[in-house]
């Protein structure tokens, strides 16, 4: 555990915490522009967090202590996820604590925690949201792991930093297995982060909502932590995508110059990714909840195809 490693680790974690709401704000702003709206500005998520932290928390009478613990658990789990995904540098102290499989485990932990909290109050919406979230997660997790497996098979390691170091040093070429994996990953990203076409982040329509249904009873600081954790989750997913598919520019071990360039390169990639996601969300419509298994099944099949192609072609 080198001093440089610890420094990059802390730096990357703090930057992820700060940049995550920025990315969400940028995504929403792009969406607003594409829909001919003015938009609330990139800094809107920060304002919302600040407002929520200052409010008095209102908790349902029937809530158990679990309900109050879950926002902190979510936040802690997402901090770990953000610290092990190499977004700035690959020399990360915590990265040995959890590999790609454990990363999927962290997301599963967060998903189950929020679903349990949703069922805790005992309202109709909470249970409905929990059920739907678990359904989407149940189908998305294998697809995510298939993508990560394909990358691990190429780099012969499940450690995220080793994967990125291997992939970044390959010369640019379209790898068919990674192309399939890329499509699968994009679908998983949309589903897992409650984006269109699986869930609509802007809607509180009872028939369609998933994520919003689960957090209906949260308010003030608890809601702020959950919102923040969700934006870190989206950020972590996007940086996994960057790390797997366009890893160039992530600083290697003990490379101070690389670190200086890594941040602007990361921000440029995030701006492109946000615009791309906004474009997708503008072009597709929300699907019925029972189309979600089809959507996730397709993602899963793409993931498996990617892996099979890797075996067939060896690339």
């Amino acid at each position, binding site marked *: 555990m080198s001093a440089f490693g610890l420094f990059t680790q802390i730096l990357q974690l703090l930057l992820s915490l700060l940049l995550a709401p920025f990315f969400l704000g940028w995504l929403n702003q792009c969406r607003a522009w594409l829909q001919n709206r003015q938009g609330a500005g990139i800094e809107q998520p920060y304002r919302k967090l600040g407002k929520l*932290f200052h409010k*008095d928390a209102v908790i349902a009478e029937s809530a158990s202590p679990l309900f109050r613990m879950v926002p902190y658990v979510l936040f*802690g789990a997402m901090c770990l996820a953000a610290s092990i995904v190499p977004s700035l540098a690959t020399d990360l102290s915590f990265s040995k604590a959890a590999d790609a499989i454990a990363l999927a485990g962290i997301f599963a932990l967060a998903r*189950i925690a929020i679903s349990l909290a949703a069922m*805790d109050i005992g309202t109709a919406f909470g249970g409905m949201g929990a059920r739907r979230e678990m*359904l989407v997660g149940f189908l998305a997790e*294998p697809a995510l792991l298939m993508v990560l497996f394909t990358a691990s098979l190429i780099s012969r390691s499940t450690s995220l930093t080793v994967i990125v170091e291997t992939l970044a040093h390959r010369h640019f070429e379209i790898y068919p297995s990674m192309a399939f994996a890329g499509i699968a990953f994009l679908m998983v990203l949309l589903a897992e982060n409650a984006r269109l076409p699986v869930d609509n982040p802007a809607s509180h329509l009872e028939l369609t909502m998933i994520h919003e249904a689960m957090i209906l009873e949260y308010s003030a600081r608890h809601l702020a932590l959950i919102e923040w954790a969700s934006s870190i989750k989206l950020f972590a997913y996007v940086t996994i995508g960057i790390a797997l598919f366009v890893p160039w520019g992530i600083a290697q071990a003990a490379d101070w110059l690389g670190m200086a360039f890594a941040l602007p390169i990361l921000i440029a990639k995030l701006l492109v990714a946000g615009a791309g996601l906004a474009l997708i969300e503008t072009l597709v419509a929300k699907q019925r909840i029972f189309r979600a298994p089809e959507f996730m099944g397709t993602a899963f099949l793409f993931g498996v195809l990617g892996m099979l192609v890797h075996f067939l072609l060896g690339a």
Partner: protein
Amino acid sequence: MNGLPMDLIVSAALFWIALGLVGLVAQKKPSFVRNAIFPLGALAGAIVAVSAFFSSGVETAVSFLGLPDLPFHLRLDSLSAFFLFILGSATFGISLYATGYFRNEEKHIGTLCLEYHVFLAAMTFVLLADDAFLFMVSWEAMALSSYFLVTTDHKIPEIRRAGFIYLLMAHVGAISILLYFGSMGGDYGFDAMRKTHLSGMQATFAFLLAFFGFGAKAGMLPLHVWLPEAHPAAPSPVSALMSGVMLKTAVYGLLRVLFDLLHMQVWWWGVVILATGLSTALFGAVFSAVQSDMKRLLAYSSVENIGIIFVGIGLTVIFKAYAMNSLAALALVATLYHCLNHAFFKSLLFLCTGSVLHATGERNLGKLGGLIHKMPWVAWTALIGSLAIAGLPPLNGFVSEWLLLQAFLFTPGLPHSYLNMLIPVAAAALVLTGAAAGYVMVKFYGIIFLGQPREEKLREAKSSGKWERAGFLWLAAGCVLLGLVPFFVIDHLAGVSNFLVGASLENRDWLFLAPISSERASYSPLLFLIVTLSAIGLAFIAVRRFYHGRVRREIPWNCGYPVWNARMQDTSEGFGQPIRQIFDPFFKVGRELPSPFDSKPRYSAKTEDKFWYWIYIPFGRAAEYFAGLFGKIQQGRILVYLLYNFVTLIVLLLIVQ
């Protein structure tokens, strides 16, 4: 120290039998039986666990018991020691719990105590047996004692039926195991079997017999039908023992046969085991998601876990058949680790359902809810068990899942190109099973413990007593510790994997789990927990420091909908509905839908296992039909029987000529 562990374990087993007899004699004083005998039984369990843990090398003994000229042979090696460790450590918690649990069963506490302790002793001897004779005797004793335990409430017809199915399946399996021992040529001692070399066909035949026999006990597809019947029928500590420990004796038997007695592996045996395990796991996961009875749900979840264990065994056989010993060791360690984990978390959850059952009298998920407020001890330990079984880091279920997935990721080295392509697909299916387990556990935990109580009587539910708490604490602590410091168990498993596959995992760093090398993969549950906890702690302090901790309690907002009652929550059928819809072809669903004009609308949906209709009912009919044909011979008149004698005599005379 040579000889001591074996002596201690045998004495503990005999002590269990003695305890059972004392319990039977003293049944007029039920509180004495509960408060003295069951804790002593727990102590014996601890002794078994400790001596099994510290045993080393191979110890053999010839017992003074048995028939004249046919003595029982005993043997304690690393494989049986590991399974004895599972038996002892799980029993310690379960027996402590049983002390408190059986206060409502004081009517037949004497017989219950005898059967319970004989069951424990029988399992011990199954694991110690070094000849077919002792093995079959203790195997049968185990089956019979557990049959009587399952049918404790024998006045209820469903329980008698469940007991019958269990007994039937146990014996179908036992016959197959007996035939397997017969096919191993001549001698009944395991030592002689180790020395026999079977030809390819014979070995395959022997393997299939053993696989069928042990598979029936373990609950592999399609022989799983007894599990969801027997587990709900039995008292909860017995369900915990059966699911947590007894199923593992079948796994032990299969490992013993594959790697020790047959001492040869063929790659397609591994494929057969892997494919069966995978379908068992998927089937169990999907079926447990649609159950409404909490113990049935757990029983199907046991089917799923046995499937995962079989997947591990299959992978081990494949690697071993290609002489890739270190990878075989990885798969084997994952398998054995999962056996240990399953013993802890499944026992814990069965005990939790027992407490819920005692407090509420309800097994139906649809009539429970909100128990976290009334039974906090049960609820918080059940939460640990549920998260562990869902395979979440940093608890123990994740460690074995992680190891098994690592084993899958190393398959590309196999010399067989089809296998290379099919095995990653198997990994995909395994991941799907793991994700389904998460779904099931959210349903299980959320519906029983969270939300509002669905029935009025739940508001009076009482929390568990102190003996129950001791059992919960032990098993929950096991789930946490096995998750946080896997190094010590894996270090210990080196002996088993050296013995079975001739290699062991090189894992020198106690903080990190890195089975091959830290560049390939590493996982550190302790560091994982520390980072997460410090992030949580810092977030908590920051929020409290910079903002405030003001909280107001109100009625739920619920999107402003004015009416709010417990009937609006998801029922267990509702929660399982998406799975039922997606996997519709797997189920036989009977629905009763109300008409819109009904004044008292009723809705019911029954999900059944198609295997009953595909295999068991046709088989039962065929058996009945053939029995009927033979029945025609029986006329009940002496004249007819004399005629049979006469005809037989004539035929024999003709043959002799």
